[in-house]
């Protein structure tokens, strides 16, 4: 299994090497943050709204990528965790009048808890078996939401209207709240990558037997990764609810979960701000451009998914070929 996982990751790692070192990407990220912070001064309300959704989707893309990077597993069920986050925000908002400042920590806690709860029975599964169980998880989500309509509002969904900070224009709050959470998640993931715990998880993925010898069981690593990933996905859902101002079961179908995976693949499973934004923008802006002809969206996503995977497959080969040719000339 570990051989496959390494092969699975290799296009992304290769691409990272091609895209350049730490210093330039650090400056790029900083520049991007500055641009995104001042952007609302220049763009109109509808763009701010879309960008808020885009940031929220970027968080969801990060959740799937985290599972791929640290767990070596693929999920098509992250819509479940996103739904948990979205409904914690929406239910606290509508039923108790509490703002996102209270509900966001709750969403995170519930997301981590449900990630762990799902990971426990599926801790021994890997690869396609886990993918199939996450598919079942995703398919069960709309049903659960509709049947708990006393709490969730059923088919009609709920409206999120409480401001985080009273007195500031709601459109600005929606934009900046999503942006702040996105930056916080990217920062936390960067710290995780350098921490002992993060390295342990990576070791457990690449060399389970070695990690076992150092006292990290594979099951434990899986549960931790699912917990982290579920928590991030819940933040995505919470932000989708807050930035999009409505929460309804139609937003958390199997397709929504598959789209998150598409975004993650399109961003080459990257955990940086730029990559996450690429994935999020792909999921948010393309449906907006194609809103007149909705049926093209799945076709385009499918083609993009295949295209990126094949590109990742052939890129190293093409590079080798070019290097070979250069070597032959000199």
């Amino acid at each position: 299994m570990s051989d496959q996982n390494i092969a699975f990751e290799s296009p992304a790692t290769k691409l990272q090497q091609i895209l350049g070192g730490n210093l330039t990407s650090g400056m790029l990220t900083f520049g991007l943050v500055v641009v995104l912070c001042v952007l609302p001064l220049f763009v109109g309300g509808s763009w701010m709204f879309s960008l808020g959704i885009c940031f929220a989707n970027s968080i969801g893309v990060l959740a799937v990528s985290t599972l791929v990077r640290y767990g070596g597993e693929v999920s098509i069920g992250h819509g479940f965790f996103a739904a948990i986050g979205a409904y914690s925000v929406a239910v606290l908002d509508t039923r108790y009048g509490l703002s996102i400042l209270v509900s966001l920590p709750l969403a995170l806690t519930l997301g981590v808890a449900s990630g762990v709860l799902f990971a426990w029975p599926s801790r021994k599964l890997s690869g396609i078996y886990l993918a199939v169980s996450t598919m079942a998880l995703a398919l069960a989500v709309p049903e659960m939401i509709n049947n708990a309509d006393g709490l969730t509002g059923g088919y009609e969904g709920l409206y999120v209207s409480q401001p985080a900070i009273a007195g500031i224009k709601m459109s600005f709050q929606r934009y900046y709240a999503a942006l702040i959470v996105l930056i916080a998640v990217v920062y936390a993931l960067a710290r995780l990558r350098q921490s002992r715990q993060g390295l342990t998880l990576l070791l457990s993925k690449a060399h389970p037997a070695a990690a076992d010898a150092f006292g990290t069981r594979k099951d434990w690593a899986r549960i931790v990764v699912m917990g982290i990933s579920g928590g991030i996905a819940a933040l995505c859902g919470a932000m989708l609810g807050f930035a999009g101002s409505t929460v309804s079961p139609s937003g958390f179908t199997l397709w929504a979960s598959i789209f998150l995976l598409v975004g993650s693949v399109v961003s080459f499973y990257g955990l940086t701000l730029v990559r996450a934004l690429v994935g999020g923008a792909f999921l948010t802006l393309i449906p907006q451009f194609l809103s007149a002809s909705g049926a093209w969206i799945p076709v385009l996503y499918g083609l993009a998914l295949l295209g990126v995977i094949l590109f990742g497959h052939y890129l190293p080969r093409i590079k080798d070929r070019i290097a070979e040719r250069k070597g032959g000339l000199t």
Partner: protein
Amino acid sequence: MEFLSNTARDLFPLVWSGMITGCLYALGALGLVMIFKSSRVVNFSHGNVAGFAAFLIYGFSSGVLLELSWGMAVLLTVMAVIAIAFATYAVISPLVFESDLTATIATLGVGLIAQGATLLIFGADIVNLDLPVPRFSMSVLGLLVTGYDLTVLSVAIVTIGALFIVIDYTKLGIAFRAISENPFAAEVCGLNLRSVHLFSWIVAAVLGVVGALLIVPTTFLSVTTVATFMLQAFAAAVIGGFASLPGSLIGGILIGVLMNLFTFYVSPEFSSTFLLGVILLALNIFPNGILQRVGGSRV
């Protein structure tokens, strides 16, 4: 006493109709397992492609695309589906040999395209697609048996029987079994992996069409009908161990009966949640049949 007789009266028809739909789940599951056994890929596009095929039959026979007889429409659709299976395998075959997980994600892309194509050509409307089956029903031991039931049963028996005979007794079947046992050794012995993979992809696609055709008369045909039906097929394959053809047959029938009992006695609204539970339970109770993992790890 009354409770017992009630249960006996309800139980028998429930189990019977569960077995009928179970045969269809088994047809879907057999396709998934054939592909998995030969190429280690889970074909997530199975349901969407089969759904697209059901729409094609509707389109060819109703005059939306062409106006053909039912038989011609099915023939044309089977040819189209074989072409789709061929194209799918052609696209993902380089990935199959690198990483099965990447190839599995790629099938999601194919599924998205099939879904989009269905929406583009036929729209999101609900249509009716009927089978030309003899309409009769008879009562056997208090059990209502319809022409549809017998059609499903006989088609399933013939298809699955033919498949098992091919796999057990023909050269192609032996090659298929050899590759699912040990692809490397099979290749060393001179077998062509790609052609056997292609065989399983094509057979799976045809099985999907048969399953979709037979399941549609029980409900209606929409973009999502066949795709949801495939969740049951996935559950059946998982129960059967995902790598065993007889297992997926038993799994299909088991899922059909269990689903029927669950919707009748517990709740019809939580069927997907119930399937999620069944899948997780099956994967945990019989991990050995499902995962060929090495016991214990040593450094």
